[in-house]
C-alpha cells in the first residue's frame, strides 16, 4: 500500500525526532511496513484508550450479560427461557421478525429498483423519505400508530366496526417494527442498483426476456449478496426493537410481549437472573447476525471486485 510506504529519509527523520534513531532498521536498510515508524508513547496511549473504551462499553457488558444469566446456575437459566411466557414472547418475536422480513424485502426491492434504475421527478424526495424512520425516535413512531389506528384514532372507528384490532395486538407490533426497519433493505440495495446501471437489463430485454425474467435472471442475481446482507440487518434489528413496540403492544403478558418487552417485565419484577437469561438470548441473536453480516459483506465485496474491472 503506497500510502504507508516511507522513504529512508522520512524514517530517519521520524526516528531521530523521538530519540530512538535507527533502532527500527537494524540492517540500516529501508523499511516498508504498514505500521508507524516507531512505537512512541503516543501510539501506546491512543491504542490503550481504544482498548479501554471498547472493553468498558462493549466487551464487559457482553460478559456481564452471560455471567448474570448463569449466576444462579444452568437450571435457573433453562427454567427462565423455557417459561411459558418466555416461549410465547419468543414465538411472537419470531412471527414479527418473519412478517417484517417479508414486508421489508418486498418493499426494499421495489423501492431500490425504482430509485436505483430510473430517473424521474421527485426521486430525491422519495430517497430522503425512505431514511425518515431512522431519524425519527421509535417512541414517536409508536405514538403515531396509536393516533392513526387506536380506538380514538383516525381509523379507529372503521377498524372497530369491522372487528379488526391493530393496536395492543400483533398487527400493531408488526407495523411498528416494519416502520422502524423500513430503510434497512432499501438502503443496502439502492447504491448497488445505481452502480450497476441498466445495460444488463437492456441486453436481457433485447434477447427476448420479459419483465419478470429480467428481474429474476439478471437483476436479482446481481444484488443477491447485498440483499441478503440487508435482510440479516433488518431481521436482527426487528427482533431487538423496543421503543415503538413498547407503545403499541400494551404489554399483555403471553400475548403481546416480544422478547425485549419480556426482559423489561422480568427486570421490573426484580427477577434479574431470568431477565438476563432472556437478554442473553437476544445478545446471542445479535452476535450471530454480526458474524453473518461480516461474512456476507466479505462475499459481496469479493463478488463485486471483478465486476468493476469488467466495466
Amino acid at each position, binding site marked *: 500500500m503506497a500510502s504507508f510506504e516511507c522513504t529512508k529519509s522520512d524514517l530517519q527523520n521520524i526516528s531521530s525526532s523521538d530519540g530512538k534513531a535507527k533502532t527500527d532498521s537494524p540492517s540500516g536498510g529501508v523499511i516498508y511496513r504498514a505500521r508507524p515508524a516507531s512505537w512512541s508513547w503516543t501510539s501506546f496511549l491512543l491504542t490503550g484508550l481504544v482498548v479501554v473504551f471498547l472493553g468498558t462499553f462493549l466487551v464487559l457488558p457482553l460478559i456481564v450479560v452471560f455471567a448474570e444469566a448463569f449466576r444462579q446456575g444452568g437450571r435457573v437459566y433453562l427454567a427462565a427461557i423455557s417459561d411459558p411466557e418466555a416461549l410465547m414472547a419468543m414465538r411472537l418475536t419470531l412471527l414479527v421478525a418473519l412478517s417484517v422480513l417479508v414486508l421489508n424485502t418486498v418493499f426494499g426491492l421495489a423501492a431500490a429498483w425504482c430509485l436505483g434504475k430510473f430517473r424521474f421527478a421527485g426521486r430525491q424526495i422519495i430517497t430522503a423519505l425512505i431514511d425518515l424512520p431512522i431519524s425519527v425516535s421509535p417512541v414517536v413512531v409508536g405514538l403515531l400508530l396509536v393516533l392513526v389506528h387506536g380506538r380514538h384514532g383516525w381509523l379507529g372507528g372503521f377498524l372497530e366496526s369491522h372487528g379488526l384490532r391493530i393496536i395492543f395486538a400483533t398487527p400493531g407490533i408488526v407495523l411498528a417494527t416494519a416502520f422502524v426497519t423500513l430503510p434497512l433493505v432499501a438502503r443496502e440495495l439502492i447504491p448497488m442498483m445505481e452502480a450497476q446501471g441498466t445495460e444488463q437489463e437492456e441486453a436481457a430485454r*433485447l434477447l427476448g*426476456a420479459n419483465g419478470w425474467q429480467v428481474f429474476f435472471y439478471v437483476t436479482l442475481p446481481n444484488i443477491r449478496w447485498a440483499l441478503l446482507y440487508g435482510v440479516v440487518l433488518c431481521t436482527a434489528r426487528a427482533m431487538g426493537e423496543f421503543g415503538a413496540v413498547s407503545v403499541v403492544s400494551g404489554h399483555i403478558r403471553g400475548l403481546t410481549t416480544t422478547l425485549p418487552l419480556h426482559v423489561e417485565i422480568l427486570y421490573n419484577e426484580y427477577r434479574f437472573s431470568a431477565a438476563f437469561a432472556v437478554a442473553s438470548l437476544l445478545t446471542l441473536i445479535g452476535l450471530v447476525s454480526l458474524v453473518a453480516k461480516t461474512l456476507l459483506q466479505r462475499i459481496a465485496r469479493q463478488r463485486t471486485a471483478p465486476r468493476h474491472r469488467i466495466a
Partner: protein
Amino acid sequence: MRIDIVGISKTFGRFVALDDIHLTISQGELVALLGPSGSGKTTLLRIIAGLDWPDPGRGQILFDGRDVTYQPVARRQIGFVFQHYALFRHMTVFENVAFGLRMQRRRLGLKKSAITERVNALLHLVQLEHFRDRYPHQLSGGQRQRVALARALAVEPQVLLLDEPFGALDARVRRQLRAWLRKLHDEIGLTSVFVTHDQDEALELADRVVVMNEGRIEQIGTPDEVYNNPNSPFVTEFIGSVNRFRGYRQGGRILFGTRSVIDQRHEAVVFVRPHEFTVTRFACGEGFWARIVRSQTVGSQVRIWLEAESGESFIAEIDRNQWDELSANPGSDVFVSPREIRCFDLKASPVTVHPAQKVSA
C-alpha cells in the same frame, strides 16, 4: 432486412439529440454511424433497437416497410452489442450465449438439446469453445467482445447493431476483430449498423458511412465519397487529418497561404490533406512559399511542419526519398503546391474550383 428511418427527432429536455433524421439502410448493408461524442449517433442506434423512442409523433422506424417504432424491444429480434458488452457477470460464457434462446424457448419451440447444439456452434464460430465454462471476468477484452457478439447472434437476428464495438480494445485486437466482423457480416448476410467515433474504423469496415454532427446527418456516402468529396468543412476536418487555411475568392480563383489580403468579402475555408502537397526548392506551378519548422521521419514518410507566408502553420507529408532529394533543413524556405484542395465559402457550401485555377501565392 431493410431499415427505414423516417424523420426521427429526439430531445432530452432542451438538448436536441436528433433533428429530423432520414436514412435508409438496405438489406445486407454494413453501415457506420460516425461522429464526435454528443452527435446523436448512439441515440439513433438505441432508437433503431427500441431501447429509446423518438419524440411522440416525430418520426418512424420501419423494418421492411413495417412500422416498429413502438414495438417492444423483446419482439424486434435485434442483435445488439453494447459498448461495454453488458455480459451477465454471474453466468458462464455458455449461459450468456444461451440466454436469449432459453428466454424464447417456448416461443421458438426449441428443445434443450437444440439450444446446447446451437450455442456450441456459435462458440465455435467465435472461437471460444474452450472458454464455455469461464465467467466474463476471467476473459480478456477481445474474448468478452466475441462472447457479446455470439450472444447477440444466438437469437438469429435480422439486424445487428453495435455500439462502439471496438472502443475498449487495444489497437492490434481491434484490427483483427474488424476484419473478422466484416467476414462474419458477409457470411451471415445480416443488415448491420455500428456506431463509432473512429474514422479509420468507419472507412475500413463500412459499405456506407453516415457522418453525424449535433443531431444531424452531415453526409452519407461510401468511404471513398466521404473521404474524397466531403460536403462540408465539418466532414473534411472530421475524416482524415487535414490542414485548414483562410482563403479568398477572386473571380474563379482561390487565394490562400499568402500574406496579402485581397478581399475580405470573399473569405473562404480551404482544406489540403498533408499528403496532397508537392514540396520543391524552386517555384513551379501554383503554390506558395513556406518555411520548414521541423521534420520527422515516420516509416517511409517524412512529416514536415511548415509555416506559410500568411503565418498559418500546416503539415505536409512526402516520401522519404523526395525529402532526401530536397536536402532542406528547419529554417529553409520551400515552395509547396497542393495537388488537390477542398474549398468552402463561409456559408459552408462547397466551391467548385477548376484544377488549373486552384491556387495562388
